[in-house]
């Protein structure tokens, strides 16, 4: 009984579980728009940032405080940019954007550092030592070399495309219950068991209602988060494909 009641509660995902925080989202936006971080069109970035949060909200995804704080910061900077400048043209120091540019630059450096670590010959991946290791866990086929791992942001972009095709209007006020997401997860798992992989688009083809689409999307997010699946994108065709983790 209790379980049933719990299962009927709305599906709840924390944005912080899916994404690495507001800085990561900013980097994604800057990258997507091919911007120079030292000259960010603050109005554009603020608009896109808020659109993301809106989409997350519509999907019933809990938005952590730090994402909202960043939104407030962006809006604040935007408003300061609009204020008439007094006397002299602004030096770099007076540019309100510096408030996010500095941390953003530092964050980027940190990302490069992390990436450099990945590029090194990692023990137990690139190089191995002789050791007696326990042989549990499953076999992984790395798949075709033409595939690259996609971020959840790119996934959301792809999802936005699908929504646009199906229905242009917003889809607030849709409650998604846990049962449907759970059962969709098991359906997708079945598909993957049979075929090994499936394209992102294919999973949405049979979906009729907006609610179903959201359920499918949340199911994919949940599966990606728990590393049940891996999401890869073909380099040239741009087709996103989902594999068994």
């Amino acid at each position: 009984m209790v379980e049933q009641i719990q299962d009927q509660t709305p599906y709840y995902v924390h944005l912080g579980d899916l994404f690495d925080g507001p800085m990561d989202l900013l980097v994604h936006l800057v990258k997507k728009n091919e911007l120079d971080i030292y000259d960010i069109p603050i109005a554009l970035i603020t608009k896109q940032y808020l659109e993301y949060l809106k989409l997350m909200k519509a999907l019933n995804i809990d938005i952590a405080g730090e994402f909202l704080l960043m939104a407030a910061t962006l809006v604040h900077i935007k408003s300061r940019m609009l204020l008439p400048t007094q006397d002299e043209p602004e030096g770099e120091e007076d540019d309100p954007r510096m408030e996010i540019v500095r941390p953003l630059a530092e964050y980027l450096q940190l990302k490069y550092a992390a990436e450099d670590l990945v590029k090194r010959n990692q023990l137990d991946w690139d190089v191995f030592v002789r050791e007696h290791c326990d042989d549990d866990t499953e076999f992984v086929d790395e798949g075709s070399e033409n595939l690259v791992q996609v971020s959840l942001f790119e996934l959301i972009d792809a999802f936005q495309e699908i929504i646009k095709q199906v229905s242009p209007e917003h889809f607030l006020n849709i409650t998604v219950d846990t049962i449907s997401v759970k059962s969709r997860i098991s359906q997708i798992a079945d598909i993957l068991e049979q075929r090994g992989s499936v394209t992102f688009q294919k999973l949405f083809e049979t979906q009729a209602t907006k609610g179903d689409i959201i359920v499918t999307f949340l199911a994919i997010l949940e599966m990606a988060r728990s590393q049940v699946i891996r999401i890869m994108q073909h380099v040239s065709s741009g087709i996103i494909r989902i594999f068994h983790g």
Partner: protein
Amino acid sequence: MDNLKAIVESLLFVSDTSLTIDKIKTVLEIEDRKAIHNVLTTLAEEYESQKRGFFLAEVAGGYQLRTRPEYGQWIRRLKQTRPARLSRAALETLAVIAYKQPVLRSDIEHLRGVDCGGILRMLLERRLIRVLGRKDLPGRPIIYGTTKRFLELFDLKDLGDLPTPKDLQALGEAWPNDST
């Protein structure tokens, strides 16, 4: 010991951590550091010139036999295991600690813009980071640093082996990947 080279090789072969010259000295009860160093150099050269399947890596202040990175794909197939790779968030947190150590949790979180408690815990559990001490501040916050295991995992001789922030900037012409 006229077969010093073969003996050192056999020690390297069975050791599951990197071996320091001091350690080899102790085990073999010889004083001649130079001789051991020469033997190690010869071995490293032989593995190169003979194109063996492994090489002598200098990691974490010592020496270790490791398979060549270009054969990693085959070994992964043999082992059929999926090693627990670190997530991007974990790598970023590690990078902050590696570069900024000794560092406080609050500094890491300030830089990354998100809570890092869970990741720090996991990194501690995996012994990739350690507690260096506590800061003389209210609440005596923990100071973090990286471990020898961190060096081993990423094939680093020592922390100085990490690229400088300047190198990173130069490397930064391409955007970092944001793939999860």
